[in-house]
């Protein structure tokens, strides 16, 4: 799978659910590249902005699209990575605030 193909696949599937890619295509492609790197490394598309524990069960909440996307897009108009955003965020009708990490602290770093 290459980045262009992944972009096309996800765009269609996720837009149907009301989630849009960030209009900054360069950023989107970099993040999708990160997803492919993680797929290769860990066997699943772990969020590129979070450290994987290399354990699918532990990381199931941060396999992209993560479970935090829905509340983050609802509250900030964007997911944690600024990969998926709302239409209003892309149209700059809402401020582009920094999206704080919503994943519980005890899940973030596993030694």
């Amino acid at each position, binding site marked *: 799978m290459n980045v262009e193909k992944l972009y096309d696949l996800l765009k269609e599937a996720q837009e149907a659910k009301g989630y849009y890619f960030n209009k900054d295509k360069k950023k989107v492609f*970099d*993040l999708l590249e*990160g997803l492919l790197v*993680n797929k290769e490394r860990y066997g699943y598309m772990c969020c*590129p*902005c979070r*450290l994987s524990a290399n354990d699918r069960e532990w990381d199931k909440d941060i396999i992209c699209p993560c479970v935090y996307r829905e509340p983050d897009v609802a509250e900030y108009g964007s997911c944690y990575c600024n990969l998926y955003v709302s239409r209003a965020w892309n149209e700059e009708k809402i401020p582009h605030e*920094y999206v704080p990490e919503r994943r519980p*602290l005890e899940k973030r770093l596993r030694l």
Partner: protein
Amino acid sequence: MNQCNVKLYALSTCGHCRDTKAFLGECGVNYDCVDVDKLDESERKKVLQEIMKISRDCAFPTLVIGDKVVVGFKKEEIKKLLGIS
């Protein structure tokens, strides 16, 4: 610029980390950087313990500027701590 020690804990795949690196580069800041996702297991453990001591947030990027810490790409905060107007 009179620069204090600057260290960045990042992930090679992370967009906010990439933005932080680019911004520090633009500002001409010399900094140490560790991409935690690229470390082997024993190194990673060591660095994660370091990060946990530095900040309760345990998220990336974690930027240490002297004795101050910024978690996330917060440009204005970083500029302030670096003394850039």
